[in-house]
């Protein structure tokens, strides 16, 4: 497979220099928001016949190694996995290690995201069993990539972008491995029950539909039928039983904690007041907040304001946590539409409350389809590592260029009616508002508000929002002013690191075009 060779670069519509080919595939450079028109049909796996599958519906095989052999594992194949088990996942590496026992090499690992505990993939890459990873990388895997040690190029996609890449045939999955907290021998899977319960299994849905071969790995086999079946056994080739698919303590947290930092609480309160003062908070509205400390505090403040105003939301989107579940159970929202479950309360609720609905990247985020939920939301609260004075934002690297986070649903959420970034104005003396972002992940035209502890900046493109909050007591300030204040406090503008000249990863936009490049660290 591809060794990281010199590749031609081109300047895209956002002025960023991006590779023309990635891992041997020709790319389209970013053309602007909503400009790229896809052509052709969706991809599909080969047609199967029930004659080739057990008529009693029992697809169990002895172990993962057997399953991979029966799937016809060959050198250079693409193996995929999902990240609903987060830092507690055992299955992805189990599969890659089983592949190495078979003697396969040059594989591409295609996780929906990777986690620091999966750093044992590094020896597999050193040994040539895994050629490269396309999926978010942080921690040791991220460093491996930015140090230029990975043979192929990394590719960072949003959740919606990953669905689009699979659906459009850009990434062809040979074998999908799906960790299932509960499954039946036919291959139906449910994520909300079992000792390793994780809630939704939406990130595995595209893999189950489009991959050539699909293996389910479970530590909680139940007799047919496994209900609810978020993943359908009709798409599954083999089922493998193991003792444990993951460490429950790291899959979901026992409790999610609101931040106690007074600065972060201040940002959270500002945002809740902004939604109220701008008139976005009103009966039947919708919003999405992540699971970070600021987002949870924001939900708490907003709830108080909704209570005072007698306002009920139509739906809220998560990352679901105890705080979102409380909104549902106390009658502050009609529905939770949930892409990822973060704590035990979330798991309990999604498993028992019909108004807590599991979604997938198809429904929430896929851009190459007939619309998606993300653009229908009134307000979304996101984080960022950097923002520039044109409201462009970065979420994957810090200012030193090291890979730190995946994109997740972040890019997809930018389509909302009011996109708000909640960021401290500086972290550890490092200013967050910069002249130019190190890595472009979100074009400024989609980012409406930047809320810091020192004030709120509204994108000048949004005169409607500026007018809506006239007369509010919120500290609305030009973004340049906040930036100057922070630069004075930090003792001047920071040095920018010397950028290397070898691209090590590509950042895709929601439509599969290449938005920016991550460079090898000098």
């Amino acid at each position: 497979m591809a060794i990281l060779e010199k590749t031609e670069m081109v300047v895209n519509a956002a002025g960023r220099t991006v590779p023309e080919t990635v891992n041997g595939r020709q790319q389209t450079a970013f053309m602007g928001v909503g400009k790229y028109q896809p052509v052709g049909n969706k991809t599909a796996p080969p047609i199967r016949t029930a004659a080739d599958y057990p008529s009693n519906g029992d697809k169990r095989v002895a172990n993962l190694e057997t399953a991979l052999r029966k799937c016809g594992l060959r050198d250079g194949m693409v193996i995929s996995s999902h990240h609903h088990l987060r830092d507690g996942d055992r299955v992805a590496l189990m599969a890659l290690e089983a592949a190495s026992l078979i003697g396969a090499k040059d594989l591409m690992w295609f996780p929906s995201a990777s986690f620091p505990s999966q750093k044992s993939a590094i020896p597999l890459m050193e040994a040539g069993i895994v050629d490269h990873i396309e999926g978010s990388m942080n921690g040791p895997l991220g460093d491996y990539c930015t140090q230029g040690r990975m043979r192929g190029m990394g590719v960072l996609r949003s959740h919606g972008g990953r669905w689009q890449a699979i659906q459009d045939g850009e990434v062809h999955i040979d074998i999908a491995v799906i960790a299932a907290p509960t499954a039946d021998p036919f291959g139906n899977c449910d994520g909300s029950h079992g000792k390793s319960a994780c809630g939704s299994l939406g990130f595995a849905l595209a893999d189950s539909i489009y991959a050539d071969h699909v293996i389910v790995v479970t530590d909680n086999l139940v007799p047919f039928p496994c209900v609810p079946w978020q993943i359908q056994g009709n798409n599954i080739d083999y089922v493998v039983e193991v003792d444990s698919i993951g460490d429950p303590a790291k899959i979901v947290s026992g409790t999610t904690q609101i931040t106690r930092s007074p600065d972060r609480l201040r940002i959270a309160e500002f945002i809740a007041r902004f939604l109220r003062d701008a008139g976005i908070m009103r009966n039947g509205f919708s919003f999405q907040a992540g699971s970070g400390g600021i987002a949870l505090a924001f939900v708490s403040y907003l709830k108080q304001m909704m209570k005072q105003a007698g306002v009920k939301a139509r739906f809220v989107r998560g990352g679901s946590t105890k705080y979102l579940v409380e909104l549902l159970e106390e009658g502050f929202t009609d529905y939770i539409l949930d892409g990822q479950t973060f704590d035990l309360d979330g798991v309990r609720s999604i498993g028992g409350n019909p108004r807590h609905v599991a979604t997938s990247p198809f429904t929430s985020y896929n851009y190459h389809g007939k619309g998606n939920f993300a653009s229908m939301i009134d307000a979304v609260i996101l984080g960022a590592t950097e923002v520039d004075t044109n409201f462009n934002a970065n979420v994957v690297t810090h200012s030193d260029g090291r890979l730190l986070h995946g994109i997740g649903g972040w890019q997809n959420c930018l389509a909302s009616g009011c996109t708000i970034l909640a960021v401290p104005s500086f972290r550890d003396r490092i200013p967050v508002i910069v002249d130019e972002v190190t890595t472009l992940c979100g074009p400024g035209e989609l980012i409406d508000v930047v809320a810091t502890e020192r004030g709120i900046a509204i994108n000048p493109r949004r005169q409607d929002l500026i007018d809506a909050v006239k007369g509010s007591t919120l500290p609305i300030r030009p973004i340049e002013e906040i930036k100057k204040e922070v630069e004075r406090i930090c003792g001047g503008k920071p040095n920018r690191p010397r950028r290397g000249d070898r691209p090590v990863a590509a950042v895709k936009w929601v439509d599969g075009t290449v938005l920016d490049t991550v460079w090898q660290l000098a």
Partner: protein
Amino acid sequence: MSDVIVSSSPSAKAGHCGPEIRSDLQVSIEPRDQGGLEIEVASRVKTYYGDSIRRQAEEVLEALGVRHARVEIRDEGALPFVIAARIEAAARRAGLGAGTRVLPDRLPLPEASARDRLRRSRLYVPGSEPKYFVNAALHGSDGIILDLEDSVHVSEKDASRLLVRNALRAVDFLGCERMVRINQIPLGLEDLDEIVPESPDLILIPKVENPEQITEADRRIAEIKSNYGITRPVWLMPILESALGIENAFAIAKASPQIVALTIGLEDYTADLGVVKTSTGGESLYARQRVVNAARAAGVQAIDSVFGDVGDLDGLRTWGLNSRATGFEGMGCVHPMQIAVIHEAFAPTAAEIEKARKIVAAYDDAQAKGLGVVSLGSKMIDAPVVQRALKLMARAKTMGLVS
């Protein structure tokens, strides 16, 4: 072949480093007889400010007159005014740079603090923890107290003095009153030498038991102001923390024209009495009422102590309402979360504002008609009542409760 470089005295350290540390740094200085400056910088923000930190270290050491030393800096994202303070502290601990101050650029001083400005809330910030300094003022308390006393360990007093001095120069405290709690007299006099040249708005003097302590502090402050040509007022707020202090409350409150407020420290006071401190304060009722009375009699503000249980906002609200009803105009604050609750508790209620508005209207009416007597309906309103109503309306206006 270089000569072996000999240290002339043991090395000294100041500050902190480590993964849990934020916005601070550790500096070690090992003085030498020769060999110039050997500076080693390790920093969490090396990529961004590594060069700047090294340059700053060179400048500060030169200003201190340190020519030969091995200097190790382990930085965790400290701001420049903190870096300067830690280097100066380490140098002094190593016996170098005596008598030299390295002062960061000073922001323009804010408007001088009015004698009877709002003092509803004053947020304590430990003077040894620079990470709290820069954002403290964002939370909207009436005052910020940079503390050199009880929140600072005895081994950190010298370094904290420099941190607080630098903060007074380099940090924008927005509209907050810039207060410093010095140590008990006589150690506090050393604090004054370092702090007063930076024109703090108010000095809190802890554990005051007799008026002579005030006089001594007053004299020292006047001397320093005179040396530095400072005309801006530096107010005083004595803290009474013992039975004897409470006994001498009035004499203490009258001991200096610079005193603008009198307050009480309940932790030490209850310890002095040998009683348990409760969240309802029955055991210190006499002392608190005495403080209110003495303050009033001396024409200064009565300010209450802190409410230590940060998690109990309901208890705080109850305490605050009770405190106001007793005659206090504000209280201390140990966490920003407490500020909004305290401001609410010390705000006049809508009913009180309405009543005061009517009285002020009646007063204005009487003035316009040239009448000496102010009446509201059939009731005569005495002059003190009118004064109180005028003051309440003025307060309400400052608090933004009326336009």
